[in-house]
């Protein structure tokens, strides 16, 4: 079951196309990474899902229904450009934002109390936002995003501006929300976050979707059938089916080599050929990192 289904969405601005026939499915209960270089069209897509703007062509389904105003309260949105009313008190501001999302004042108050205890920010209630540090403001804004317990949470660069301790706190919150059944869309450039948290990804480049699917499958797809070996000794006289790509001297006398395996050859065969020749310290498959996948996909699309 998909919570969001983007179907052939096109969005044009006066002088450029922001999204060109983009279709993406976001499964319920997953953490979904929306990737792409700056200006690729991620923000445009997020704004369309948030109903801030509408698509020119195509449609969006939310939980099986065509996206409409009743879904607004089921979405929580943390924009990349953070912002709060500077002169307003933290408590009042969060109450206001929660009420705009459809909570009654009483409900909002109860939920806020829980969060203020959880984040240990009880003393902030009567403080003006402008008196808080940037990291503290981020925390407040995160609370405002998830307070109304939305089914779908959209986080645009959620970790920017957090120190490692608070970033961990937020990461744990995100995982907890996922446990509760929330779907989370991440829009980010930070590939380590994607590596760590995301189940599914989609990559948008130059207004087009160039890649999407479960992270595991994509990694599988981008595998190059190369293995690395760290060893002592000489690697001469390997069969032709093993192609030595490079060789590097490591300190302490070890060498590291990447070897490409031909079709239908298992790593066991490679190991069998290696064992009599060299002393192996470590051996493993080169699994492409998200960063590699990102770079390769972006560079494959021709310029212009």
């Amino acid at each position, binding site marked *: 079951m998909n919570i969001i289904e983007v179907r052939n969405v096109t969005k044009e601005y*006066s002088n450029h196309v922001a999204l060109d026939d983009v279709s993406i499915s976001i499964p319920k209960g997953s953490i979904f990474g929306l990737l792409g270089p700056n200006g690729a069209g991620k923000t445009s897509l997020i*704004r369309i899902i*948030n*109903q*801030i*703007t509408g698509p*020119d062509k195509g449609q969006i389904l939310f939980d099986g229904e065509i996206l409409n105003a009743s879904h*607004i*309260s089921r*979405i929580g*949105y943390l*924009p990349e*450009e*953070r*912002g*709060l*009313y*500077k*002169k*307003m008190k933290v408590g009042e501001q969060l109450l*206001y*934002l929660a*009420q*705009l*999302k459809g909570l009654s004042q009483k409900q909002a108050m109860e939920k806020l109390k829980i969060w203020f205890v959880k984040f240990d920010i009880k003393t902030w209630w009567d403080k003006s936002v402008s008196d808080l540090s940037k990291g503290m403001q981020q925390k407040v*804004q995160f609370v*405002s995003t998830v307070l109304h317990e939305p089914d779908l949470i959209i986080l645009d660069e959620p970790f920017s501006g957090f120190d490692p301790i608070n970033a961990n706190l937020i990461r744990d919150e995100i995982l907890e929300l996922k446990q509760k059944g929330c779907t989370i869309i991440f829009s980010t450039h930070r590939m380590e976050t994607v590596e760590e948290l995301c189940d599914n990804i989609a990559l948008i480049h130059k207004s087009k979707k160039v890649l999407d699917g479960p992270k595991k499958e994509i990694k599988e797809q981008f595998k190059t059938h190369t293995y690395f070996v760290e060893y002592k000794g000489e690697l001469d006289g390997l069969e032709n089916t093993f192609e030595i790509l490079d060789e590097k001297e490591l300190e302490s006398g070890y060498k590291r080599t990447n070897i490409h395996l031909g079709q239908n050859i298992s790593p066991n065969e490679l190991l069998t050929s290696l064992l009599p020749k060299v002393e192996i310290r470590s051996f493993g498959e080169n699994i492409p990192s998200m960063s590699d996948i990102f770079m390769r996909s972006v560079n494959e699309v021709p310029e212009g």
Partner: protein
Amino acid sequence: MRNIFLVIKREYLVRVKKKSFLIMTLLAPLLFVGFYAVVIWVAIGSVDTKTVQVLDESGLFKKEFKDSETLKFVYLDASLDSAKARFKGSEANALVFIPKNVINEPKSVRIYAAKNVSMDLKSDIEKVIEKQIEDIKLSAAGITHQILEDSRVNVTSETISLSDEGEKTSSSGAATVIGGICAFLIYMSVFIYGTQVMRGITEEKTSRIVEVIISSVKPFDLMLGKIIGVALVGLTQFVLWIFLTAALTSATSAALSSQMPKDSPQMKQEMKKIQDGMPNRQMPGGTVENPIAEVLGAVNSLNIPLIIGCFLFYYLGGYLLYSALFGAVGAAVDNDADTQQFMLPITLPIIFSFVFAQFVLRDPDGNLAFWTSIIPFTSPIIMMVRIPFGVPAWEIALSMVLLVLGFMGTTWLAARIYRVGILMYGKKVSYKELAKWIFYK
């Protein structure tokens, strides 16, 4: 609807809770009443009589300068030089020198004083001399004193407005004052509260909260909520001002009247001066028995409920029309400093209507008055100037309908610019760009 209400509530409370709002609301009536009290206190307090020395070489004015409560005339018989020399040592406030040939050279009259002479004193003295010379010249032409006396008829006219409710004594003086005050209040509030709307929108845009808000509120609702919230702040302030001023004024005048003899000559004179200062002087200044009652009567002759009703309508209409435009400017720019280039076309009609208002006060039924009170951009100010003088019902109705259409139009226009503008950052916007936004899908 729920969200628009929430926005209105926030906009209203945030502003009303500000210290500056409280200070302005309390201070303005205090300043007003304080000013009023000082004027009255000065009027009561200035009982010192001024002495004016008269050196009359022509001998024509022996009995013409009459002493009053505030002026005492002393006739001198000396040469100008010695009079001048003695004047410095005396306690006299002014020295009037009338030369021998004053009849042929009326401009040769001189007033000497240690300090500058007040306009009132100067014109009083000139009037006496003019009248006497006129008399003398007329007598010389063969018109006797008796004929002159007979020909001096004192005509005092009363302006009476003919309306369906029958004849009513009206007062153009009171109408002028009321019209002027209403126009000024609308002019000020459109500016003050219009810029508040603009600032508020720019603030939301620069603090980037707008993206969070419009993911839950429609941009149009957010804009309208802000406009209505600020309008209510304005109304609150007006109502508080009216009540506080009324309360303070009655308290002050009660305190003052206990120290002040009824119908004191000073008060009478002050009132007379105020009436004389009015552009359309219709009230016969000389025959005023009880000036305060006269003014109150004149004010009562105006259709007060109509004026208050229209004032509220035109205040709201004018404010809505202009604040939508101010809001569009706020949405189009990135910071307060960039607002200037778009402000001019909005402020010009407001300033023009305030300028036109001065002409309309003089001729409340002219062509200029008619057209400017019909066109929505000027009508909030101009119609309020005209209403105290009486305006045909169909003109008011037409002007009101057009004003409603006008603000619906500007709100529509502003909403188109607003929804694009609030998400547009880091771009210098031109008029051409704005026009494009309006026609975006």
